[in-house]
């Protein structure tokens, strides 16, 4: 990276921290620190919700995911608009009316303290770990690209944001998220345009889509039903609905964002517009990945987009690497020639013989792609079989490889700033929510003392700091894994189902009481963990299983076991 890029990167990050510190001044107590004084308009709520959900993993892994597996990942978000409707209609009015700080406070009023504490523990555990993952995911990528020490990377990604989050709380978070998300969207849009502009002369946007489509990368809708298939329209609409309902309706990191709104109207507006813009945004990010696939059909793609992995393999297994790399360069050159012939053919009037020629070229193109795929798989196997200390999968490096090698000076620094900003946006909201729940649901409930606003503020800040340090500690211990975007989502799905089940029971099953739902939730959590351990279904279905199990078991416990006991009594 050039000096200008480093200056851009440092300048953007410093300005965000300074802006956050300035905007977060004037904190007086828990209301201002945890809910920004409930004064935010809908567009701040919208940007907060979007910036909280879209972590660095979304922007790093998204294009890589489309490059490797096509655009079908977007179906994962199809249930989101439906969830926004249910949350706006049912959840928001109740939370706003009860004037709660956390979603779990409502459970105390509806059921009992045990249910509130149990749900709070599930939340703190899953969100605490996944926030650590959100620190680790971009840190490992940055450390591989820049050669930074992983511990230092973790501190840079997870530590600097604490400066403004600690002091300014929800208000500082909301204002920085607004700027962060605007920069992210602008930079990603420019990067997408540059992918198209950097195609060879004569290769249009349509040609790029043609190549990506013929390679199966534009598979936005897949209708085949399979319990173990992660992304198809059925798991997307049904599983995605339950996941989005639990994430936006019961995860404090999101509930905390729309609790900062002025009133019910502003919360609803922010949520519903999120339901409308989220899918097109994800589609655009994945489209960048599909276009990158077409881009690398004309440009030399490396064996692995993770440069560090190539260096390690080249040093540890020089002969195997050189043979594989030589063959790879040869095959990619042949593929580039075939891709150029295919696009040239598209630009002329097609005769029947041209159509036959197109079929021939396409068959050749697919054959070469299969060879390239097997070479890349072979490279991964070298890493795995020899237990080399680098990631075998390179999904998280595809987009940043393009950024580093093909973007103009200045833009490279800005895109790496995007990685930090996206991380900070979601991590800061997570820390605020963890601190809120720890203070409101545990500290204040268990100590049973009345605190002054100044004391609330002091504890709020203390818990923010503790959770910040905890996240960095988790990141330090995180081990290697595959595509990080899935790892974080899978972790959430282990606990979200049960939490959602408790809330759905609270809202819709009015006769169910605390004891029944408490034991139902424990049993449902055990069921989800067993299903996950036995690998019986794709992770999106775990939310459905968890939520429905709680509701059904709660009905059984309430009407068959507890009813009899109360009759006896």
């Amino acid at each position, binding site marked *: 990276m050039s000096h200008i890029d480093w200056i851009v990167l440092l300048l953007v990050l410093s300005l965000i921290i300074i802006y956050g510190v300035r905007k977060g001044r004037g904190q007086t107590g828990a209301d201002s620190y945890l809910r920004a004084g409930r004064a935010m308009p809908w567009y701040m709520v919208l940007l907060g919700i979007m910036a909280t959900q879209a972590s660095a993993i979304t922007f790093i892994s998204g294009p890589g995911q489309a490059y490797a597996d096509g655009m079908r990942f*977007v179906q994962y978000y199809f249930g989101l608009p439906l969830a926004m409707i249910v949350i*706006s209609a049912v959840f928001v009015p109740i939370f706003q009316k009860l004037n709660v700080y956390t979603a779990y406070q409502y459970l105390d009023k509806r059921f009992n303290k045990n249910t509130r504490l149990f749900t709070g523990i599930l939340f703190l555990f899953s969100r605490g770990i996944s926030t650590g993952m959100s620190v680790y995911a971009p840190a490992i990528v940055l450390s591989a690209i820049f050669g930074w020490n992983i511990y230092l990377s973790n501190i840079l990604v997870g530590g600097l944001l604490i400066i403004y989050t600690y002091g300014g709380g929800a208000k500082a978070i909301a204002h920085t998220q607004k700027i962060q998300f605007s920069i992210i969207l602008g930079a990603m849009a420019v990067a997408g345009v540059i992918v198209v502009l950097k195609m060879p002369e004569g290769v249009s946007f349509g040609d790029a889509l*043609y190549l990506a489509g*013929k390679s199966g990368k*534009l598979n*936005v809708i897949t209708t085949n039903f399979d319990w173990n298939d992660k992304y198809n329209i059925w798991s997307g609409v049904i599983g995605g609905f339950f996941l989005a309902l639990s994430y936006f309706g019961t995860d404090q990191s999101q509930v905390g964002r729309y609790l900062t709104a002025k009133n019910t109207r502003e919360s609803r507006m922010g949520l519903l517009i999120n339901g*409308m813009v989220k899918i097109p945004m994800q589609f655009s990010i994945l489209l960048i990945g599909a276009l990158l696939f077409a881009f690398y059909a004309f440009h030399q793609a490396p064996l692995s987009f993770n440069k560090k992995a190539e260096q390690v393999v080249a040093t540890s297994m020089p002969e195997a690497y050189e043979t594989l790399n030589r063959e790879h360069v040869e095959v990619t050159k042949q593929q580039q020639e075939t891709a150029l012939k295919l696009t040239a053919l598209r630009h002329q009037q097609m005769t029947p013989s041209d159509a036959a020629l197109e079929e021939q070229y396409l068959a050749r193109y697919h054959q070469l792609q299969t060879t390239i795929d097997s070479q890349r798989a072979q490279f991964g196997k070298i890493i795995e079989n020899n237990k080399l200390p680098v990631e075998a999968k390179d999904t998280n490096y595809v987009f940043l490889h393009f950024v580093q090698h093909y973007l103009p000076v200045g833009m490279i620094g800005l895109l790496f700033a995007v990685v930090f900003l996206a991380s900070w946006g979601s991590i800061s909201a997570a820390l605020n929510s963890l601190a809120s729940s720890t203070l409101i649901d545990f500290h204040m409930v268990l100590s049973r003392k009345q605190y002054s606003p100044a004391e609330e503020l002091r504890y709020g800040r203390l818990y923010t700091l503790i959770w910040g340090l905890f996240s960095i500690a988790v990141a330090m211990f995180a081990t290697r894994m595959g595509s990080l975007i899935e790892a974080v989502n899978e972790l959430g799905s282990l606990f979200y189902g049960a939490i959602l089940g408790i809330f759905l029971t609270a809202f819709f099953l009015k006769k169910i009481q605390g004891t029944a739902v408490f034991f139902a939730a424990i049993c449902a959590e055990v069921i989800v963990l067993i299903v996950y351990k036995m690998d019986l279904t794709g992770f999106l279905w775990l939310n459905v299983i968890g939520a429905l199990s709680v509701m059904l078991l709660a009905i059984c416990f309430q009407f068959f076991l507890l009813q009899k006991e109360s009759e006896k009594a």
Partner: protein
Amino acid sequence: MQQTEYDQEKRYWNRCYLLVLLWLIVLIILFTWFTNSWK
């Protein structure tokens, strides 16, 4: 008067929910067309 305002507000939000639902249907139709046209 209050009941009328409440009904109006309710109708307004129901229309918003319907709009979001329609938008999802439009997106799925557009994506299906997109997938099929570049197969």
